Every structure is written in C-alpha cells, then in structure tokens.
C-alpha cells in the first residue's frame, strides 16, 4: 500500500516539477521578461509548493483515516474530542508558514511598488471603450491602439473568417505600444470612461485604469520582443476586444520609431491644415473614423447587430445632418456607450468624420459638413 502511494506521488511530483521548470508551460504562470514578473512567478511557485505540501499532509492523513477507520473494517469509534497539544501545534505551524510567506511577499511587494527615480520614457495610457490610447508627452506622440481588423472580422457572431486562422486572434492591434529595452519606462494609466485594466502577463502586473486618477507602473524590459495581453477589468460589451500589445525594441530602433511617428504626425497636421474640401475631408475623416469609431461601428460601417447600430444606411447617418452632428458632438442620450466626441476631437476632425460617415460605403448623401457648421452645432 505504502509503495503504491509513494509511486503515485513520485509520478505526480516529477510531472508538476517538470512543468514548473519549463516556466513558459501552457499550464502555468509565465516567468515573463521583467524583474517584477520573475518575482511574481517565484512567489507563485513558493505558494504553490507550500499548498501542495500542506495538501499532501492533510489529505494524506484524511485519506489514511478514510481507509483505516471505517466501520466496515470493524473500526470502533474512539471517544476523544480534544487534545490541547495537537491543537496548539496545528495553530502554531500555520502561523509560522504564514510568516514565512509574508516576509518575502512584503519585500517583493515593496520592491514592485517602488518608483524608479527618474524614468527614461513616460507614456500616458488612456483606456476607453474599447481601445487604448498611448500618449508620449515628451516626444509629442499620441496614437490609438485598436483591435486589428483581422481579429475584429473573425470575432463577429457567425463570422465567415475562422478565428483559428489567426495565431494572434484577439491579441493583435493596429498600433502597438513601443518602448525601448533596458530603460525605465513609466506608464501613467488612467481611463476616459469606465474602469479598465492594463495587463501584459510577461510584464508581471496589471494596473487598473480608473477615471480621475493616474496609476503609475514602472517597467524595465530586458529582452526585445512583442508581448501581448488583454484588458482585465470588465468594461462593457467590447471588453474582450481591447488587447494590449507592447513592442520592446532596442533604444536605437526606438529612436527611429519616435522620429517616424513624429514625421507621420507632422504629415497629419499638414493634412489637417490643408484647404478643406470634400476629398480632404473624406481622407481625414477616414483616419478619424478608424481610430475613434471603428471599434464599435466596424470598419465596414455595418456595426454589430443588436449592440452597435450600422452606420451604412443608418437612420442618423443618412437622415438630417443636424441630428448626425448632435449625436457625434454630444453623445447619445439613450445609450452612454455612444460618447460625446465634442471634447475629444477638433471641429475640423468632427466635420471630417461626419462627412466621411455620410459618404462612405453605400452612403451617398453628397453632404460636406464644414468645421463652421460643427462649431455652430456645439
């Protein structure tokens, strides 16, 4: 009997042990690529082994008792119901174990929360339904990170595309967050609407994006690579569709990327100051649409039945232009998910995106909405 038990236990231990050493096992937490994530992993493994050990002892004794002390084997019930020594032992041992866990946990926790003295890069992370916006205040760069269209198309109810064809299904975005390796990067995480949570498991933490407050998180990634995560706090119907993708690149590549982004921004600014006409409006409107509107109403303007209204052939987008401007500027009275974009976009951006929505796809109103008209409708 003992032999069999021992054999079963050894098999179990070697299996779990092998999985633990592998680190990146599909069954276990990742070791990740930051000091924080490695500490979290070590704490996790320490706790796991303590639980396994307690479990083996407690369940072992219990199983022994279940086998030996059964009436069918002729066991006679003892009468005892107290034993002070035993009770003291099984109170003191858990206390010691807890102290043994609490000491390293406190040390790691303090270390994890310690702020880097002078971060090399600062990024403001804004969660909003259902996308992340990354703002680099010092570099003067900002962009929106939306779920990539390949995932979006395959994620619809009864979609024609098969999710299994995309290895990064629901984990790919159009514009990832780019950070340099080996540098201290401070993320200042907040939200523009409901609570979200910014999480990449390889970085070792998640931090809630709470409206009205900035939660700082300092990261330092050693290995270049692409690290993927998802929003972790329920934030409405698009909760599953706002992944977080971080590209860690060498400092040189990072500088290059910054220069590129700045150039693109300058170009966009140029476009935005070009004389306003129908063609320019449609071009600019398409850009605004894809970063601000497409996560709900979809790139093809068809929306999602029952959740997000279709803009193609929609009542508002093909009806009177006043109503269309009103809902984009002030948001929907009936449904808070349709936010007010009056504060988020300029008159010209609003005019362009409304023009785009009224003329894209099969919509063909021919309307050109001007920034002046938007200003008047505010």
């Amino acid at each position, binding site marked *: 009997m003992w032999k069999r038990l021992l054999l079963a236990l050894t098999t179990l231990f070697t299996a779990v042990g092998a999985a633990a050493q592998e680190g990146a096992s*599909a069954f276990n937490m990742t070791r990740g690529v930051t000091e924080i994530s490695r500490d979290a992993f070590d704490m996790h493994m320490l706790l796991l082994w303590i639980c396994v050990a307690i479990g083996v002892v407690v369940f072992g004794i219990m199983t022994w008792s279940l086998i030996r002390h059964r009436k069918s084997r002729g*066991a006679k019930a003892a009468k005892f119901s107290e034993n002070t020594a035993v009770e003291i032992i099984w109170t003191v041992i858990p206390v010691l174990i*807890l102290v043994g866990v609490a000491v390293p*946990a406190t040390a790691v*926790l303090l270390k994890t929360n310690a702020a880097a003295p002078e971060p090399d890069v600062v990024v403001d992370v804004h969660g909003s339904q259902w996308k992340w916006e990354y703002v680099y205040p010092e570099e003067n760069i900002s962009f929106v990170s939306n779920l990539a269209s390949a995932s979006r198309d395959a994620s619809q*109810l009864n979609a024609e595309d098969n999710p299994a064809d995309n290895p990064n*299904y629901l984990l790919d975005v159009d514009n990832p967050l780019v950070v340099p390796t080996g540098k201290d990067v401070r993320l200042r995480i907040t939200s523009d609407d409901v609570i979200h949570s910014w999480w990449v*498991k390889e970085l070792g933490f998640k931090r809630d994006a709470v409206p009205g407050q900035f939660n700082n998180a300092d990261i330092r990634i050693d290995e270049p690579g692409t690290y993927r995560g998802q929003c972790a706090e329920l934030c409405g*119907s698009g909760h*599953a569709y706002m992944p977080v993708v971080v590209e860690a690149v060498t400092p040189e590549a990072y500088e290059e990327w910054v220069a590129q982004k700045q150039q693109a921004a300058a170009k966009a600014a140029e476009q935005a100051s070009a004389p306003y006409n129908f063609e320019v409006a449609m071009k600019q409107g398409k850009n605004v649409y894809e970063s601000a509107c497409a996560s709900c109403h979809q790139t093809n303007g068809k929306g999602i039945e029952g959740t997000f209204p279709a803009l193609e052939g929609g009542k508002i987008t093909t009806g009177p232009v006043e109503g269309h401007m009103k809902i984009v500027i002030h948001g929907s009275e009936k449904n808070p998910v349709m936010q007010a974009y009056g504060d988020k976009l300029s008159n010209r951006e609003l005019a362009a995106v409304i023009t785009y929505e009224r003329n894209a796809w099969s919509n063909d109103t021919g309307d050109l909405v001007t920034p002046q008209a938007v200003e008047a409708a505010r």
Partner: protein
Amino acid sequence: MSQTADSVVDHIEHEHSHHGPRKGLLRWLLTVNHKDVGTMYMVLALVALLVGGVMALVIRAELFQPGLQLTQPQFFNSLTTMHGLTMIFLAIMPGLTGLANWMVPLQVGADDMYWPRVNNWAFWMLPPAAIMLWIGFFMPQGAPGGGWTLYAPLSSTYAPPSIDWVIMAIHIMGISSILGALNIILTILKMRTKDMRLWDMPLFTWTWLITGFLLLLAMPVLAIAVTMLLTDRHLGTNFFEAAAGGDPVLFQHIFWFFGHPEVYIMILPAFGIVSEIVPAFSRKPLFGRTSMIWAVIAITFLSAIVWAHHMFTVGLPVEAQVLFMYTTMLIAIPTGIKIFNWVATMWRGSMTFEAPMLWALAFIFLFTIGGFSGLMLADVPADYQYHDTYFVVAHLHYVVVTGSLFAIIAGIYYWLPKWTGHMYNSALAKWHFWLSVISVNVTFFPMHFAGLAGMPRRIPDYPLQFMDFNMISTVGSFVFGLSQLLFIWLVIQTIRGGKKVGNRPWDGAKGLEWTLPSPPPYHTFTTPPSRQTVHEEGPHGYH
C-alpha cells in the same frame, strides 16, 4: 413553558385537532409555520439554481470554442452578471436560510421562529424580487452586464435602464435577509429550550447565530452602495463620477465591505452543516468543539477587515496593500483549524459513507483546494497576475459550488428523511454524487490553468491558447448541470414515498431533531424537550 403537564397535553391535542396546515395554495401563501416557510425557501433556491444554472450553461456553451457562436457580447455580459446575482442572492442564501428555518427551531427545541409572520413576509418578498431581477432580460437594452459586483461607473451611468430594477430587487432581497437574520438570532437567543446552554448548541445553529450578526453588518452596507448608484443615476449625486469630483474606487470600498462578509455568510452555515454530518457518520463527537466556534467567530471578525484584497490592482497605497495582505493571510489560521478539526473528528472514528457523508467529505477536500487558491490570491505580488483572471473564477467556484452548494446538498441528504419520513434511493444518490463530484472538477479545475495562462474573466471570446481548457470546462459543466436533474428526481421521489424511517435514520446522528418522529408533526416542541433529552442529544451525551 410554565404550564403543568396536563395542560400541555390538552394544548397538544387542541393543536392537532384544529391547527394542521391549511388546504391548497393558501397554506403556502399565509403559512407562518417554520417548516412550511423552510420548504418554500428550499423550493425557491432550487428554482433559482436551475435558472442560474441554465445561464451558466449558455455561458459555457459560448466559451466552448473561440469566436462567437451563440450570444452577442452584451447578452453574454448580462448572463455572467445575472448568473452571479441569481446564484448568490436567490440560490445559495435562500438555500441556507431554508435549512435554518427548518432546522434551527428543531435544534434548539423551539416551537417555531420568534416572529412567525415576519418569517412569512421575509420569504414572500423574494419571488417578486426574483422577477424584478430577471425582468431586465425582457427590457430594451437587456439586463445589466456590469458584473454582479456592479462597479461604477459601468453599472451607474453606463448601465441600461434595467439596472434600476436590479437595484430595487437587491434592496428587497436585503430587507428579506435582514428580517430573516433577526428572526434566526432571536429564535436562538430567546426561544432556546431552557436546558440548552449557548455553548452546547449544535454547530449548525451556532454558525447561523454568527451568520445572522454578519448579515446585520453586511446587508445595510450593500443597501448603501446600491442606493448611491441609484442616486448617481437619477439625482446627480456624482459619488462615483470622477469628472464631477467623485471617485469610482469609493464604490469598490463600500461594495467589498459588504462583499467579503457576504462570502462568509455563504460559507459559515456550510461549515455548520459539515460539522453536524462528519461526527454523525464518524460516530464520534466533534473534535475541538469550542475551538470550532471560536474559529467561526474569528473568521467573522476578520471577514470585516479584508475587503481591499479584492482591490489590489486599483492603485491603493502600498501600505494599505501590505495591511490587507496580512489580514487576509490571517484567515487561513481559523479556517485551517476547522479543517484539522474535521479530520481529527474522523480520525479513529467508525465511519460509514452514506450520501450526506460523501458530500461532506467532498466539501472538505474541495473547499480546501479553494482555500489554497485563496491563500495564493492573498499574496499581492502574485495577485497582480492572478487578479481578474480565470484563476479567480476557479477559486470562487471551488468555495461557492464545492463549498456552500455541496454543503447545502449534504444537508438536504442528511435531513431529507427527517422532513419526509422516507429514505431516498441510495443508489441514485450515489450516482448523483459521483457524477457531480467528477464533473465539477472537470469544470472548474482547468480554470486554474486557463487563468495562469492569462485568460481574463468575463470575456465572451478568447485567444486560441485557452481553447483546450475551455472545451474541457464546458463538457464538465454540462455533465454537472444535467446530473442535478437526478437530484431533483430523487427529492421528488422521496417526498412522494419510499421506505419509512424512524426518528433517527442515522445511528450516529445527535441533536434534538432526531428525537422527533419523521416526518415531524406540523407543530413540534409545543412541550419543551426534557432536561435529560437535551443532555443526551448535546455534546456531553456521548459518554
């Protein structure tokens, strides 16, 4: 109680000839009898278990494979939200209250509850509340989808109109719980037969006494939280509106000040049930009886100072995180003591494994696994990874399903012969047990792995690497769900007939309820039990 023996006999005969139950539906509507009210609570709990269970199965069916096959995301969120609210407030809590209604008066030798009519009201508030809770599914924009935790602002300004109905339903369920708790506390303290000392009360009654006080602490706080949501929505109070100087995190503090005691409200009476069953089928007194009671009191105290462990990622100051990590870890000590005591009760006992014992044993094994993951979650640096993933989903289902629900089922198997006077089909009970205990692990154990691999909670669709875990969980959940139909069939069968049982169908069972006939007459303990009976059925009656 000061009546002479003769007048007591007269009284009993009077009762029997004129005060049986009413006939027909009015019996149930107007009853003030604790047994009838208890039965109604149990039926409601069973109905809610089925409704919440169907929601769970739709959720699991959608998660069977990546992509959306059945539900739109908003409807999926409504399902997860309503599944949680239904199971907590309409299945588990009424299930435990039903057991208390039936058993507390019998265990303390009282002839009914302290306020019989209030007891009737407390129950009859629940069916309308249930309708108000579920009606959102038929309203424009559907039922709320912000999670059972109702976090602001997703469940205040961003919620569909049906949230107002949910808030009112929570208010009504809260009032019902408070009345129920007061009634149970008063029954125990004021109507306990005079020969039963407080410390000699059965453990189920003890845990309910403490749970009663915990309900009085927790439910008003929930009422405050949801009222603030309501006024934010309609009166412009902006408690949780960051743009107007409010703070969404404030909601979480208030909610979890209710929410953590709430999980103990669901588990303490379960501890009580298991503490009745393990000695009965080990034929040995409960080990460390006094320490069991003190452990429950300690857990209750600690439960009120751990709430922020649900909020380690919201950006609390690091000192607060350290403090709440410590208080949370401390809970492991009294909880461990309880588990050790149960094991020590079995040690050198003379055990048999009838259905109640099987479920109690499954409870001890599986609740302990839920306790282990709880200990892991308490550790903040690791929690930064676990938080809001399927690891948490696994943890909470191990404590609520294989904890609270398994204990309720164990209690029903333990007391059903007493209630009905019939022994159930034990072969069917074994099938129900083994199918359930295997499938529940197939359902929830893989969720630990899904969570560690990085799957967030509350998502209708997921990346490909989580597919295998989800497929296994879904298969398990359907077997678990369907197995419960066996249970319903078994209960109906037992109510309708079966082998007659005597006063004490379990030879090792102790307690005043086992001195009564099975089924007990409509009115019991109109004559208080004798001092000797109380002594023999109490903890000192083993020698």
